[in-house]
């Protein structure tokens, strides 16, 4: 205790105390923070178009119109929500299943959210309703998105040619114009990746089956799963965002540590 007391006026004491405080607060928060409920039971598609329609009218119609015909805002060519006939159950599963829809408020882009508003059955009902309006892509089968059946090397090539310009080489995401962005692909489920390629949500182009065949889509999923799961041979990735974060690290931590050493050495007079 004496040793501790003797050090309490050490210049580093305040920094150590701050770090300790931040660490403890963070640890305490992580311990008590509520876990999102995990819905694992997924009923087979009930084809309950009626049920889906009721859900749609209650939750989606204010922007997409009562019959999913889309709605204009009346301000220029801005729309509140696009018409949904023909987007298919895949689009519904992607938009609602990733928490993008329903949007809490209009914005440049619907952001993925951890808080999915509907249960898997409800999403299936909604999808069945939308699919009943006009034919569109269906939710892919388990086999179609199974990463173990894809070729990650080929998928990597397809990814770099078609996806990396927006989503970045490691799927870390990238910027688009006026606040829009290509989101990070880390932790996105294979089904959602497939659906996104097939339906082209928001600013993303549609990669239909003749652009990228279903097998190639599976290869892309295999590639993304591989780089998601592999350990990083080089150490901390700094977000896999390219040289910007590396430069920032060199300036802040590299220079910071070395100047700290220089100050320490400079104060050690002979």
């Amino acid at each position: 205790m004496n040793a501790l007391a003797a050090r309490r006026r050490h210049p580093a004491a305040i920094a150590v105390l701050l770090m300790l405080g931040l660490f403890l607060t963070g640890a305490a928060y992580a311990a008590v923070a509520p876990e999102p409920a995990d819905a694992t039971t997924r009923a087979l598609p009930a084809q309950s178009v009626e049920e889906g329609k009721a859900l749609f009218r209650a939750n989606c119609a204010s922007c997409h119109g009562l019959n999913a015909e889309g709605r204009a805002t009346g301000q220029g060519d801005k729309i509140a929500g696009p018409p949904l006939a023909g987007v298919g159950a895949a689009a519904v599963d992607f938009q609602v299943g990733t928490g993008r829809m329903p949007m809490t408020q209009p914005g440049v882009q619907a952001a993925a959210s951890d808080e999915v508003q509907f249960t898997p059955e409800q999403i299936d009902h909604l999808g069945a309703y939308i699919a009943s309006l006009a034919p569109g892509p269906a939710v892919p089968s388990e086999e179609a998105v199974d990463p173990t059946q894809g070729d990650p090397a080929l998928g990597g090539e397809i990814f770099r040619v078609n996806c990396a310009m927006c989503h970045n080489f490691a799927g870390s995401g990238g910027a688009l114009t006026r606040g829009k962005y290509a989101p990070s692909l880390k932790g996105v489920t294979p089904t959602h990746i497939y659906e996104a390629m097939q339906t082209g949500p928001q600013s993303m182009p549609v990669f239909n089956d003749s652009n990228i065949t279903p097998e190639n889509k599976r290869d892309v999923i295999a590639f993304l799963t591989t780089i998601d799961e592999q350990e990083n041979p080089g150490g901390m990735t700094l977000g896999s965002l390219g040289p910007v974060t590396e430069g920032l690290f060199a300036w802040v931590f590299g220079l910071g540590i070395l100047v700290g050493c220089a100050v320490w050495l400079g104060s050690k007079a002979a």
Partner: protein
Amino acid sequence: MTTTSTPRPADALRDGDSAYQAPPSAAARKVGGLAGWVDDRTGAAKPVGYLMKKVFPDHWSFMLGEIAMYSMIICLITGTFLTFWYVPSAGLTVYDGSYVPLRGVEMSEAYASTLHISFDIKGGLMIRQIHHWAALMFTVAVVVHMFRVFFTGAFRKPREINWVIGSVLALLSIIEGFAGYSLPDDLLSGTGIRAMAGFVQTAPVIGSYLVYGIFGGPFPGEMIIPRLYSVHILLLPAILVGLFTVHIALVALQKHTQFPGPGRTNDNVVGYPVMPVYAAKAGGFFFIVFGVLALISALVQINPIWGYGPYDPSPVTAGSQPDWYMGFADGALRLLPGWLEFNLWGEYTLSLNIALGALVLLPLVYIVLGAYPFVERFVTKDEREHHLLDRPRNNPVRTGIGMAGITAYTVFMFAAGNDIMAIKLGLSINDITWFFRIGLFVLPPIVFWVTKRTCLALQRRDREQVLHGRESGTIIRTPDGRFFERHEAELPEDQWILVQHEAVRPFEIAATADEHGVARPAARSDRVRSAMSRFYFADAVNPVTPAELAAAHHHGHEAEAIEGPTPAGEIESSSRDDALARRLE
């Protein structure tokens, strides 16, 4: 071979001679053994002894250049290791190494060998990461070392040449960095080369010919990687090491500058000799730098070339940026508006929107840097040698100019990261770009003004401290119930630092008139110089003079007569002030 000599008649004259035995040199007598043996053959004892006894002043900021030096040495060592396996060839091959997500992919031998170094050579990835981190640290340290030299005025006579050499070194270091960045032939470095080809093409008239020359044909060709390799491992390192040797020899020759302090003058150097103190410190610092870089490289990934995949002209990845030191040029390209591209006579394209950022800005930055000492000398017409450093506050305008320059550079550099900022801060990339476009013109003057006013305020505070001492925090209550705070004078050695610098005033053109009394206009250069001198020194705050100090004492005693009787401590410190005043006189 044997030597035989024919007897000659005059030999008798040398009968009594004995063969001349050279006495051992002073060093040989002193240390004997191996050192003596070496000295007898090289005469090295004298210069080495001179170097060992050389005195260097001590300050942490003097080690910033050392960080650069050591990082460069680390780059040389690790780079040599990398050349053992790297194959500088654009030849096509199919990868079959141990990195699964690239197996069976067609790629260049350069990229395959870099993957081989990263995954199949023991310690290869570690060495590659040390090489890259050390390169980033080298360029960072060079820049920060320049900050130190600039803000302390260490570039003044006689060190202007060394400043220019340093500027050239800084420019070469970033070109060297770019050449290395381009070698792995992954998607990122290939994109960099593609961009470079575009930049060169924007050179008016000669652009396309230059590109054909550099690439040995149309982009990408097979020549660029071997050529960049020669430049990266042979040409530029040779020039860098050569210039660096001159740089450091000039430091030894001109002696290191030192911060002002008691006993430190323009004619001496106060510090420790190289042997043993500096050798231990500097040698130890090398290992600290190497250790820190090795630690960073072991923990933090840099340039994951396996993630980028092989270069192919069709794809490009989001977040394609150069390493930070080329960021300012990339940022300029992101800020330049598209309407700067002109079509002349319907036939010739003049891409100023690219050329200004890529071809003009890069050399311009380093030319402005290299020229600054000469601009300041033109203003001050100062012909004296300066071995004592300026405290940055004591030259507010120079410090302001430096900060404004850093601000402009930083705006350019940050603009290169506008896309990363957009996704990480949730902002619109268009808004960020406009912020920087406006900021480029608005921020430097604001920073100049704020810095200058801060320096002037600090100088006034220094004056205040000399004249009235520092606040002791001790409140004295007089017998009749009044309160005042006791001020304590600084120790003379501390005060000296606050008053040692020279008083300055702007250069005025003397009114000249010819013999008829008609005013003669001053020479143009004099008028320019006078205007610049006013800009530099018009509102200078000069150090306390001995007379002012003496006056302050009288004033101080009067004030105390109003406030209450002089406490004992005040008298004591006053006598210290008197001692200082005498010394100043």
